[in-house]
């Protein structure tokens, strides 16, 4: 996995849904950078102007609920946001984020211990979330073993290539 991420926290509430992450009207856009210009537009229209590359979204429970639109995590990634830390994630968003390479971390304690604007560092390999401003460390929940093996293999694409080769190989 990538090296550590560092940036300021932008804190939001619970049930941040995919309609506010990337409103439906932008869902015909494919380009990541273009999508990134509209990240979180329905929730915080100022987000893309006030955030700096590397900044981290911190949110309460059920982040990414609603539609299966993969452009939701793609838009967040395209905005330059380095990671999302939440108390919990909606199922499809969680899977999509790992598939497209948006680092996400689950830690209720970290979310409670981070205030808007705090400087945060995350070590993806260990799952350690460091609140530099407040001098406190938190441990994100480990990824389930199968997800961890997908991440270590480099994502879904290499996994599919391997499966495909197995299927094509003569029995």
């Amino acid at each position, binding site marked *: 996995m990538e090296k550590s991420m560092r940036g300021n926290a932008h804190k939001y509430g619970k*049930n941040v*849904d995919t*309609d*506010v992450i990337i*409103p*439906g*009207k932008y*869902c*015909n*856009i*494919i380009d990541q950078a273009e999508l990134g210009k509209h990240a979180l537009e*329905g*929730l915080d*229209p100022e987000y893309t102007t006030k955030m700096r590359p590397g900044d981290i979204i911190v949110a309460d*429970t*059920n982040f990414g*609920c*609603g*539609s*299966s*639109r*993969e*452009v939701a*995590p*793609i838009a967040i990634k395209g905005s330059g946001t380095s990671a999302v830390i939440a108390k*919990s994630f*909606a*199922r*499809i968003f969680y*899977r*999509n984020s790992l*598939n*497209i390479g948006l680092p996400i971390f689950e830690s209720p304690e970290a979310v409670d211990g981070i205030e808007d604007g705090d400087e945060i560092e995350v070590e993806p390999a260990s799952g350690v979330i460091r609140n530099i401003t407040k001098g406190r460390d938190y441990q994100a929940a480990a990824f*389930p073993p*199968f997800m961890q093996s997908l991440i270590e293999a480099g994502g*879904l*694409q290499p*996994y*599919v*290539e391997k*499966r*495909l*080769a197995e*299927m*094509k190989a003569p029995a």
Partner: protein
Amino acid sequence: MGMTLTEKILARHAGLSSVEPGQIINAKVDLVLANELSAAVAIGVMRGIKGADRVFDNEKIALVEDHFVPAKDAQSAKVAKLMKDFAKEQNIKHFFDVGRGGIEHVVLPEEGLVAPGELIVGGDSHTCTYGAFGAFGTGMGSTDIAAAFVLGEVWLKVPHTIKIIYNGTLGEMVVAKDVMLKTVSTLGIDGATYRAIEYHGTTVDNLSITGRITMANMAIEAGAKNGIFHADAKTIAYVKERTDREFIVDKADADARYERVVEIDVDALEPQVACPHTPDNVHPISEVTNEIIPVDQVFIGSCTNGYIEDLRIVAKILEGKRISPTLRVIVNPGSQKVWMQAASEGILTTLAAAGCAVNTPGCGACFGGHMGTLGDGERCISTTNRNYVGRMGSPKAEVFLASPATCAASALTGRITDPREMSPVALSS
């Protein structure tokens, strides 16, 4: 140890004699679905997969143009064309263009592409709709859909199952939508995350196929992976009319393990309304109508309530009347077949004569795409499934979710209205 309905379907598709919650499986898929938005991204991903020149089976993929069609603008036309070109290149059998399909989840069952016991994944969160037929349907993002296009299998974590038992008889003007809104509020919008919902009880046994579609469709509004009914004689008759394909009717074991059991009694259930801005912010109509809530738009349609049975209810309430001059009513029959059936029954004329705009089938208005987008400060009561901030357009608009009956009653008065206040209308279904 016994298995739930979902576990049985997953076990068979994984080639296993049994599975248990939490287990990771590789499951064969019977059908992979995408619309032009999810397909556009999935096709790009597939192009990047080494060795993936062809889809696994050109007869087991359904591609439906439904979100931004007829094309809203050049960019929408581009993604629609991207999917159409892919369908041609891969010789996809089940490709539905504008005028020959409609909303994906309305079209697939109509075309006999969904049968009990099958496993369907789709690049749309409302793929859970197919649970209405005793199938396992779940929504996924485009990368997973690309993998399914190529492999014909997906990895899945077997979900725990929540059993919901519905008892009682629905009152006049109380329909499946009201039962499901009540269910979503009972569970909460993340109450079923990572879970399967299994619907039981005499109330749902008595529901029509359309009613079950409405309920399975909104399982995702509680965060569920899938929502499923047992197939019965009604299901089998519906499916056999549309396909000769063999299928297996599964049944949950008597000793199946459920994570929890929830009972919902519907005898005293009123029409329900989900108020802004979450689908679980549900209140009985008597509470909502305590204050006068004027609306600017009424929307009838979507994969939740765009079926002929829904349009019949609306037409019965609006027949011979005019909608309130203070609002507009937009009706989207869910598919070309629904549109044609409504035309042949005179429903489209009834609705148009009442002052409704009848659109071509599609998803546009429901997700704030086009053909019914809300402006700042506007309020809509809608038969759709989501009312998040900005869902139907402006983030400064409000969306209330309700049944076709409640929406039709509100269309007449110009404010959110209890359909039971309307002159006695015998609902045939």
